[in-house]
């Protein structure tokens, strides 16, 4: 591996001199209860090697049995990507030796993918739509997980030995391969990111995977090549493996464009190779050069019979497809009356479902956005959680807003009630009751507090009397403090003005 920093050409210059072409392979782990070819469970985070059967381990005589749900998920993904679904397809053995593949082959599909020739429209942040053509989507199984121990970096290089956990071995995967994406010029990195994001949204909408990037449910390999002009033949490409966040997809493409431009400008040739992405430094480094080692000697898997997706079955599955995310986003934005930037923030925060459910539970779209994108987003961010992991439901948010709208809670009290909900104290109503949170609008109690505040600040009273209403806020603040935030600020203001005779 080369640890020296590669020469780079400034990105803008690189894309002014070369036409980038990208291609993306995305692997998605299906959220089935069991593995692709055996009944071992697939729960994330289990103790090592506790979700393993003879099939997962490739023990002699173990025979695979195909998971129907996984096949249906693969077909649904194919349909969502506007693919043709093969009437007949087979599995194949991809032969290679690596400890995380205990059988010494990965069961995959080769020349007969279950889905092929599709497309998906990808929307960039400014609303530009790019159509990405899908070459194929095929079924395969995941490998085990290696942990490299010893050595200087803890990564593959320099490791002294490796530890292997086969819990992940055999988890169903669908690999989706694009055709070369051309004609996007300097926006190639952005397109790559938006494409992976769009796929993630589709997987979630279909319910075929939790599609959590941080858990490696969705992994991308990005291919990049440069050519002198859009009508020149495709240049030599590199494949950067396992780029596992949206941001990294964009950065990796951008980096490769700058690096390859430097190689070409210095009169060199891009080497066709696998490259590794380094999240920490934001660079790619050379891995394996594509060679004989890439000869996987595929052959049809004799232990599994072909899958013949009847047209009836395919149409039944097509009928289960939900509204696709881009269409749904447009519809909801219209219904909710959000601006483009507001909607973008909601989408990026993963709050669409939560807001939709809050609105369904009775909150106004504006109120739902205010809570989820404000107080709750801050809390989630501070605690490193996803919004949906917070101990608050859309129904809670709707209830909270009802308490505010009815005047029982002001904004400050509502936030306190929400804190109680997040702490597991119950619904907003229950928290408000238990903590005694209620706006005080009883004039008697308020007048006492107002009089005390006025008495404490005679100079302010004078100013207000002389027509300077600025300091009213100071009195309201004092009353709020005295009532621990429970006063109705509007009413306090009226009382203050009455008392000093300025009204």
């Amino acid at each position, binding site marked *: 591996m080369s640890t020296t920093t590669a020469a780079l050409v400034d990105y803008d210059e690189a894309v002014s001199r070369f036409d980038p072409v990208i291609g993306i392979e995305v692997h998605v782990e299906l959220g089935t209860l069991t593995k692709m070819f055996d009944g071992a469970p697939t729960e994330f985070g289990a103790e090592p090697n506790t979700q*393993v059967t003879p099939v997962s381990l490739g023990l002699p005589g173990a025979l695979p049995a195909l*998971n129907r*749900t996984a096949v249906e998920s693969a077909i649904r993904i194919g349909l969502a990507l506007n693919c043709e679904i093969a009437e007949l397809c087979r599995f194949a053995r991809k032969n290679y030796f*690596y*400890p995380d593949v205990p059988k010494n082959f990965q069961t995959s599909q080769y020349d007969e993918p279950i889905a092929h020739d599709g497309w998906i429209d990808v929307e960039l942040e400014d609303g530009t739509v790019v159509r990405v053509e899908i070459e194929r989507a095929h079924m395969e199984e995941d490998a085990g997980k290696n*942990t490299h121990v010893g050595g200087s970096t803890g990564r593959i290089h320099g490791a002294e*030995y490796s*530890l292997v*956990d086969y819990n992940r071995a055999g988890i169903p995967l669908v690999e989706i391969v694009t055709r070369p994406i051309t004609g996007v010029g300097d926006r190639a990195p952005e397109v790559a990111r938006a494409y992976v994001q769009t796929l993630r949204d589709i997987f979630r909408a279909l319910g075929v995977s939790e599609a959590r990037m941080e858990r490696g449910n969705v992994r991308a390999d990005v291919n990049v090549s440069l050519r002198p002009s859009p009508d020149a033949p495709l240049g030599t490409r590199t494949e950067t493996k396992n780029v596992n966040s949206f941001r990294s997809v964009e950065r990796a493409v951008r980096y490769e464009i700058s690096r390859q431009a430097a190689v070409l400008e210095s009169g060199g040739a891009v080497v066709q190779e696998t490259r590794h992405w380094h999240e920490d430094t934001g660079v790619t480094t050379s891995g394996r050069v594509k060679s004989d080692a890439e000869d996987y000697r595929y052959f049809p898997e004799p232990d599994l019979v072909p899958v013949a997706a009847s047209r009836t079955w395919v149409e039944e599955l097509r009928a289960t497809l939900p509204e696709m995310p881009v269409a749904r986003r447009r519809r909801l934005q219209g219904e909710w009356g959000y601006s483009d930037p507001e909607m973008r923030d909601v989408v990026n925060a993963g709050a669409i479902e939560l807001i939709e459910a809050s609105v369904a539970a009775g909150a106004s779209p504006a109120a739902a956005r205010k809570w989820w994108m404000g107080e709750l987003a801050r809390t989630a961010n501070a605690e490193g959680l996803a919004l949906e992991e917070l101990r608050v439901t859309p129904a809670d948010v709707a209830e909270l807003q009802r308490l505010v709208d009815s005047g029982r809670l002001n904004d400050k009290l509502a936030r306190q009630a929400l804190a109680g909900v997040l702490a597991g104290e119950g619904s907003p109503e229950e928290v408000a009751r238990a903590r005694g949170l209620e706006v005080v609008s009883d004039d008697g109690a308020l007048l006492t507090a107002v009089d005390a505040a006025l008495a404490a600040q005679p100079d302010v009273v004078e100013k207000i009397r002389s027509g300077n209403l600025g300091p009213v806020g100071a009195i309201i603040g004092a009353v709020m403090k005295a009532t621990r935030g429970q006063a109705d600020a509007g009413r306090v203001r009226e009382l203050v003005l009455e008392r000093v005779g300025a009204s």
Partner: protein
Amino acid sequence: MSTISREEVARLAGLARIDLTGPELDRLAGELDVIVESVATVSRVATADVPATSHPLPLTNVFRDDVVEPTLPVEEILAAAPAAQDGRFLVPQILEED
């Protein structure tokens, strides 16, 4: 005429991680040649209307329901490992990539 060269056998042996000596390569090149030639007879017999087949039985769509089944006890699994650590298989350093 020989269709399988000694070099091809050496390459296949490398891919399959089989360490073969020079004399073994020579012998296997000859033997594989006979096998390939024999199998090639099928191509001559099969006419265009005979589709390639990967399975002798006319079966498709043999599925299993997505239902969890018992797994092996981790102690039993690791008992079969040459070496183990922290509930995992211990294997030699992976790939001298360069």
